[in-house]
């Protein structure tokens, strides 16, 4: 048994892959509580896809993916806000148009400049190709996400619960929303290597969706989300090593199973009551 666990870890690149999955899982899980309870899944998914051109541009020019994603996220958020500012275009329509447009642009850029291999890595993740440098970035991103959520926790609470009160006391809910979108963009940089652009949303939704079936209080939901994400990272990772399946999909499927179990437990609990 011990050997079974240790064997994959004797390879440095596999160790790095597992670490990447855990770091990314933690960052995404903490955010997922807010994405789920603020009803931001559509805009979160949109953001995850729409920053692709920024990532590709950073990739081509050899600059940091970190700044490519963040710069693009600012453009996307501003674009959505600008298009829907007068209410003539509904916000979800604006999100839909911008998200698909930018995603298409990203794919187009990728297809011009890189091989098909790189494209699949960005779309579906490349967890075994994580370098030490990538791992450092992921660590930095996780620390930023945890720090921002901790420091601005009360602002997140009030803008989520009662935006009117928030405006009345001089705190702009829009500002907090844009801040959250920036954090989502950052985690996407991390998550792209682990699960790829296509499945990023799973990490931003499913942990808190599962946790919310079992816990009522926000800190507990966040804690459980992190636990579920870490378990999924580890289980998915070993599954992909031993069963030779795509690691990103294995992580996401594990999360989905955890959600299914949580949902079942909650349903049974309510029945018994």
């Amino acid at each position, binding site marked *: 048994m011990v050997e079974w666990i240790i064997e994959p870890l004797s390879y440095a690149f596999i160790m790095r892959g597992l670490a990447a999955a855990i770091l990314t899982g933690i960052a995404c899980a903490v955010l997922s509580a807010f994405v789920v*309870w*603020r009803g931001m899944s559509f805009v979160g998914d949109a953001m995850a896809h729409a920053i692709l051109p920024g990532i590709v541009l950073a990739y081509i020019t050899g600059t940091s993916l970190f700044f490519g994603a963040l710069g693009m996220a600012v453009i996307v958020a501003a674009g959505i806000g600008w298009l829907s500012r*007068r*209410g*003539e275009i509904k916000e979800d329509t604006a999100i839909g148009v911008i998200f698909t447009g930018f995603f298409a642009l990203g794919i187009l850029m990728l297809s011009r400049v890189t091989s098909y291999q790189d494209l699949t890595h960005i779309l579906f993740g490349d967890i075994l190709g994580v370098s030490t440098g990538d791992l450092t970035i992921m660590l930095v991103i996780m620390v930023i996400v945890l720090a921002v959520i901790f*420091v*601005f926790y*009360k*602002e997140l*609470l*009030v803008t*989520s*619960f*009662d*935006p*009117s*009160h928030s*405006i*009345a*006391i*001089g*705190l*702009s809910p829009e*500002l907090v929303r844009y801040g959250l979108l920036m954090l989502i963009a950052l985690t996407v940089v991390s998550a792209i290597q682990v699960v790829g652009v296509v499945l990023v949303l799973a990490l931003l939704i499913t942990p808190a969706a599962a946790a*919310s079936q079992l816990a*009522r*209080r*926000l800190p507990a*939901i966040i804690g459980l989300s992190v636990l579920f994400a870490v378990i999924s990272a580890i289980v998915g990772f070993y599954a992909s090593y031993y069963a030779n399946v795509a690691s990103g999909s294995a992580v996401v499927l594990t999360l989905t199973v955890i959600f299914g179990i949580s949902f079942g437990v909650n349903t049974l609990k309510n029945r018994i009551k």
Partner: protein
Amino acid sequence: MVTKLLDYGKPCDTPAIADTPALLVTGVNFSYPQLNHRVLENINLVIHPGENIALVGPNGAGKSTLIKLVAGLEKIQAGTIEVYGNPATACKHRISLVPQRSQVDWSFPVSVREVVMMGRYAHLGWVKRPRQEDHDRVEAALKRLEIDCLAERQVGDLSGGQQQRVMLARAIAHDADLLLLDEPLNHVDIATQELIFHLLEELCEQGKAAITSTHDLGILPVHFCRAVFIDRQVIADGAVDEVLTAENIARAYGFEFHKQKDLSQWLNG
């Protein structure tokens, strides 16, 4: 943008000016950008410290819009709004808003205590954590609204009346001088209504001022001395029995009823 960031949690550097009204609204017009008619037209209103007034009018009369303008939720387009002698938005400590129920996401996972603590945020601002004084004030507000036993419950689990008590407790913790309550009586039980009215009376005796918007005309004579009837414009402003005339009601609601009868009689009963 930067100055906007600094608004939140800013100490109140515009002290209340003595002998100024709690609220002075002068020549306010307002229209929403999507609609081409005016929602508010030439509104003039004076409310003195210690006054507890009802803001009445039919749906779409602009009651909520007026409250939003005072609270800074909408930008003033024409006219001025002054609170204790300063522009309405100058000090975030001075005005407390109890928004309409539908403006709040009741399903969001927060506890009663956390919501009441939000009343202290205007005093705390960015990054700062609640101090002992803030915890004490939250505790006192919970006790005043008789919901201290619910403090750890999730707000989503409470009844409508209990939820409204939480919002009132938040306003108490905010320690503002002007309270704005937008339709606070909807879906609220009688006991809570009574508690809210007593609380407002008590606060106004301390020299604060309160505006309660409602479309429930029946409660006016019992709980308010003064009512302001608006329907885009101020239609009537004064003692409740002077405001609640058949003519005013007919004008505001667009129909005439019991014209020959004296309404105040059954409204009082």
